[in-house]
């Protein structure tokens, strides 16, 4: 009786462990089976204005059937190492749950066997930094099973810089100047009124 309970308990415990093992995916375990390229105009790209043309597809040198488990493709904008220095909130971790490299979603759509192209306008909330593009292939459980990126393994080539919007608007500028002027002028006004009251009370 005790032995059966022990066996049952250990099966339960081991299955729990198996569950957690399955949930934690590390980047180093993924295969680079996707080919991703990104093209854009020369120079510093502007958030909210410029477009990047992203192309992705399966690397044909892999055997057919490699992509049998790929159900969804997720293309993301990722920080290059130079933009991660001294910024712990952008750190690269091997465990994908903790990884903060790729924080901006470009597109997430069902996976098709053919090469796809997308022209993406850079979102207005992208900060000023250096980026590259990575695509993850997800299976039916939404877990990453493969990836591809437009740069090399050291993340040194094909990087591009994006300049964030300033966030300033003409209306804000005008409001700032008006309120500032109002503050200073009202101070003068108070002084003037005080002097007038003092003169009146003396008379």
């Amino acid at each position, binding site marked *: 009786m005790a032995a059966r309970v022990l066996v049952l308990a250990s099966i339960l415990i081991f299955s729990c462990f198996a569950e957690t093992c399955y949930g934690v995916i590390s980047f180093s375990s993924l295969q680079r089976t996707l080919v991703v390229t990104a093209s854009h105009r020369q120079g510093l790209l502007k958030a909210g204005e410029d477009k990047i043309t992203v192309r992705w597809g399966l690397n044909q040198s892999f055997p057919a059937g490699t992509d049998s488990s790929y159900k969804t493709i997720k293309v993301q904008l990722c920080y290059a190492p130079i933009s991660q220095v001294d910024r*712990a909130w952008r750190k690269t971790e091997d465990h994908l749950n903790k990884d903060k490299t790729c924080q901006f979603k470009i597109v997430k759509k069902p996976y098709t066997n053919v090469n796809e192209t997308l022209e993406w306008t850079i979102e207005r909330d992208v900060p000023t930094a250096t980026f590259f593009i990575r695509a993850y292939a997800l299976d039916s459980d939404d877990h990453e099973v493969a990836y591809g990126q437009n740069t090399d393994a050291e993340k040194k080539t094909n990087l591009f810089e994006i300049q964030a919007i300033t966030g300033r608007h003409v209306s*804000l500028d005008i409001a700032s100047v008006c309120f500032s002027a109002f503050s200073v002028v009202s101070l003068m006004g108070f002084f003037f009124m005080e002097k007038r009251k003092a003169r009146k009370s003396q008379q």
Partner: protein
Amino acid sequence: MDRRGPSIQHGVASVSGAVFARIAMGTACDLFGPRLASASLILLTAPAVYFTSIASSPISFLLVRFFTGFSLATFVSAQFWMSSMFSGPVVGTANGVAAGWGNLGGGATQLIMPLVFSLIRDIGAVKFTAWRIAFFIPALFQTLSAFAILIFGQDLPDGNYQRLQNSGNKQKDKFSRVFYHGITNYRGWILALTYGYCFGVELTVDNIIAEYFYDRFNLKLHTAGIIAASFGLANLVSRPAGGVLSDMMAKRFGMRGRLWALWAVQTLGGVFCIILGQVGSLTASIVVMIVFSVFVQAACGLTFGVVPFVSRRSLGVISGMTGGGGNVGAVLTQLIFFKGSKYSKETGITLMGIMIVCCTLPIFLIYFPQWGGMFCGPSLEKIATEEDYYLSEWSSKEQGKGLHQASLKFADNSRSERGRRVHSQTLSSNATPSANV
């Protein structure tokens, strides 16, 4: 985030600006009254806060931050104002509440502003615009509080400086005399040093404690930030408590009680700082930090229970010197112990605690002839009274012109600083003649 901390030039620049602003504000209060001085400063620095909304280069950020920093000198005018409107027996409480809740505001904004920012962003603005809009809130508060001061405030219980000066009840004072009597009073310098090691330490800890918890105990940055905020939020009760304690000690033991309480509480703060650097567990660290924060903030409140009595003519300059000392202490402490990687953070905290204990010792040297000091009673050599002390700031020529009346009145009011036993003795001896009639 830049872990290296302030550079020497940055530190010197920021502290000189801060010290200058506080002494200038103190002098302005002595000459023009706290109502006009503080309202002017607040309205003149409000543009810096409005312009923060449109800053977009490193230089512009530095400039708006620099000019916004000047507005912090309103601390001096607030303490001056409390010292003018509230009498001796309650001045510690008044100063403690005003300063404590002011410091609390700094901690509260750290919690409120991110919420305001999120709200604006969720309404629809991009985050780069949302923070700019969010800055209008503190800027508007600044403008409106200045209006409130001008409309509802008055300098003294009797009225405003200008009206009193015009009617002849108060004389307009000279800058050179006010300044001279402030900086030649050694008690002001001692209090500046000791305030550097209670408020200066408070500022330093505000800056380093989040990083300390994040690095040493591997907390999330957000959690570390909340723990750090609780250090500042303790100001809700701890600084007022220091002021209340100062007044309670004064009621029983007079000025000597205020000095003993200040020394004891600040030294205990130093001891708990040493302990904070030594403990290794998270729970113990949080508990010790809270105890440490209560003592250090109470010491700030106790300091401004003593400051109102150091000088009457140059109350503003003394307040400004003490306030400036706080900033010098903060920058000095950060530069010595928390710059670079010479000391680990915990060693730095322990050493800071030792320095607190050492720099609190000069309170032993503070001596009022009419009330005594920590170890000596009031002077018996000459007839040392409150009038002698406060009128020593006025030359006989100035007294001839009647410029010293306000100081005379204050000297009379400050007799409560003799403590209960002596005070009741003098009262009964004063009452006897009339009973005989």
